Each structure stands twice: as C-alpha cells, then as structure tokens.
C-alpha cells in the first residue's frame, strides 16, 4: 500500500488529526500572542523588567519539549487533559519570539519619530497605539510567523502524551517501522508549516510600513 492509498483509505482520520493539530497550534499561538505582545510592550516601558522577562522566556526555550510536557503533567486543571498540557507547552515555547520581536520592533522605531511625537504632546498610550505599534507591526508579525512555524513541528511531539494531532501517525509509524504511516503524519504537518509561513509572510509584508 502506498502513501496515496493509505491517506485515501484513512481520509477521515487524516482530516481529524490535521484539525486536532491545527487546534493545538492555533490556540497555543493565540495564547502566546495575548501574553507575549503585552509582555514585549511592558519591557519597553519598564527596562528593569527586560532581563527577567527575556531571560525567563529564554530559559523555557532550553527545556526539552518532552520534559516540559512531563513537568506540566502534575499541574492543576492543566494536567487533567493532554491537549491542555500540549497547548500550554506550545504557548510557552512561542513566547520568546513574540516578546523579543515586539520589544525589538518597538525599540527599532526611528528615535526622531518618537521624539517628535512626545514633543508634540502625545500621551504614552497615543504614542504606543498610533505610532510605535503600527510601525513595529511587521517585526511583530515576523515573530508570530517564526513561532507558528516552530509550533507546527513541535506539536507533533504532543502525540507522545496523547494530545493527538499529526504526531499520532509519526509515532505509530515509528512503532510499526512503516514509513508510509510516518509520512502520512509528516507531510500534512510540513504543508501546514509551509502554508503558515507563506500566509504570515504575506501579512508581514503587507503590514510593514514602507
């Protein structure tokens, strides 16, 4: 049985696992955006928080993913379901690019523009929402893009703790020593990563000033 036949025969399962995968990546990315971007903004306002926040996000990145899944197992509420663990872990991994790109994007705005804005009497909030964020948006989206693409790959490992997703096929294929089954998981995941990269890349370009 070749790959094409396998996927045709199991198309409902392939679809199901793909949707599960999308769910894991989507929810975790949204979570990371909601936490990471405000944190990135925060450390532009309070430089003293810069090192602890970026340092913390950096340390999370160094934890091997399987170990992080394991660490979250005893967590209350989260630990009760494998998909919650996976989503939280993926969100934690995505934090660093979100925080760093938000920070770098805002700090990269031309100083003359900021000074002119402050000098003409914009409040900090006006400066942030009318000037800094719009000008940093391209860099921020680039962070979301990197995080999403990494997440698509990382989410395959979530199957190891029973969170589902396309990793199911990869682990099953490994156990069966069957390359077709591995590819049935790996190829849709790769396509998903590619599509995420292309669409967010397009968005990044559109939202970058100039």
């Amino acid at each position, binding site marked *: 049985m070749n790959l094409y036949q396998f996927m045709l025969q199991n198309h409902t399962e392939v679809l199901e696992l793909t949707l599960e995968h999308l769910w894991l990546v989507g929810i975790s990315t949204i979570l990371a955006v909601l936490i990471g971007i405000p944190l990135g903004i925060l450390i532009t306002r309070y430089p003293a928080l810069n090192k602890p926040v970026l340092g913390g996000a950096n340390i999370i990145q160094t934890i091997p993913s399987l170990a992080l899944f394991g660490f979250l197992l005893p967590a209350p509420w989260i630990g009760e379901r494998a998909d919650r663990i996976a989503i939280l872990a993926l969100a934690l991994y995505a934090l660093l690019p979100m925080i760093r790109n938000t920070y770098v994007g805002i700090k990269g705005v031309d100083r*003359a*523009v900021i*000074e002119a804005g402050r000098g003409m*009497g*914009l409040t900090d909030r006006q400066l942030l929402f*009318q000037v800094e964020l719009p000008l940093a948006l391209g860099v921020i989206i680039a962070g979301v893009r990197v995080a999403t693409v990494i997440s698509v790959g990382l989410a395959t490992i979530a199957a190891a703790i029973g969170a589902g997703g396309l990793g199911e096929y990869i682990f099953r294929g490994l156990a069966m020593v069957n390359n077709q089954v591995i590819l049935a998981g790996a190829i849709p995941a790769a396509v998903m990563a590619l599509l995420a990269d292309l669409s967010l890349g397009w968005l990044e370009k559109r939202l970058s000033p100039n």
Partner: protein
Amino acid sequence: MTDAPDSRPAIEFRNVSYRLHGNGDAARVLLHDLNLEVRRGETLVLLGRSGSGKTTTLKLINRLLTPSKGELRVDSRPIHEWDVIRLRRMIGYVIQDVGLFPHFTVERNIGLVPKIEKWPTPRISKRVGELLQLVGLDPEIASRYPRELSGGQRQRVGVARALAADPPILLMDEPFGALDPITRAELQREFLNLQKRLRKTVVFVTHDLREALLLGTRIALMEAGRMIAVQTPEQFLASAEPLPCAYRDAFE
C-alpha cells in the same frame, strides 16, 4: 492673564542646572546655572558648538528633560505645575531629523494633534490646506507619504505640523541643518516671512553663525553648558569678547 501680559517673558530660566543621573564620571553636568528670558514674539537663537547645551536647554522647555536644579517658567507658570501634555501641545517642536510619522500621509501628520484635540474633520482638512500654503507647499501634497517627499519638503511639513494647533511657542532644533545650502537659504527666508506674520515666540538652536545673525532677534551664546552672553545680532558683531570674535573668525 492679568494686565499687560506682553511685558512678561514667555519663558524664564532661573539658575537652571541639568545633570545626567549617575555616579562619579557618569554624573555629567550639562547645564550650569542657566539664566535666560525669552520675550514674547521674539526669535531667540541659541548659538554654540556641539555639546554646548543648546539642545538640552530646548528640551527643558517642553519637558522632554527635567531640570536638576533651579526654576523654569513658561507663561509665568513654573514648569512642573503644567500638565505636561497641555504644555507640549502649546509648544510646537521642530527637529533636524523632522521625525514625520512614516505610516501617515502628510495630511495625517499635520492633522494629528488637531485630531487628538477632537477638531471636526472638515476643520482639520481646512487647517492642513492653510498650513501647507503657509509653508510654501502645494496642497496637493497632502495625500503623499513622507518617503515620497524631498528633504526640503519634509522639513516644511515638519514646520506645518508644529504649527498645526497654533501654539504660541515654537522650539526649533537645527531645523535646516540637514538641508543643502540652496534649500536652507530658501527655508530661512520663508521662516523670516512666516515669523513676520505669526509673531510666535521662537527658540531656535543652531551652530551656524550666519543663520543666527539672519534669523535671531537676540542671540544667546552658549559654551560648555554655560550661557556666555545674550546679545542682539548687532551687538554680537561689534563684540570684542573672545568667543564672539572666534565665531566671527570661523565664519569669515
């Protein structure tokens, strides 16, 4: 505003010092005991070499910096009593790098403060048109983005933006410093004409003696964070003091 408001200075520095925070060598004193009065409607030029404290002095006025010592009054009111946003909106600010918002059209750049102040849209458009004409630009330029303008056009838009909400005070930090000599001369002439009509209180920073003599009602000469002298251009030219002489020699 009691009687004879025009006799009172628009801006007053009394023994103002400014030092960078920090210990030892890091705690540098940038301004020593500055005393200065800027009169209403005059163009006071702060002249001095790089690092003499001109820009620091300017930024104290719109509170981008806070004095370490001494008292600074704007409109006879101590600067710390002002709401900083109110203060800045009555002070136009023009800098050498212009700092136009690259993601806004010329119209939105100029109309930003009026918009924040909740002017009705038709009034903003009308004001933008007036201002573009005032600074010698074709009103058709309103829909363009800053990157589509020449350096001279950009600085004109910068001046228009600073004038948008009709502030009584204008701070200009080497506004023409980055322009080619011909464009600079053009903008200097236009500034003189503009100032004849508008009679704003202007504090103008430059290191160019010719510009100072041309534009200044009075020239405040600064050196190493100290105010050396405040003179009219005629007095400056006639002065036998060593520093004015050095400037005259340098620009012979």
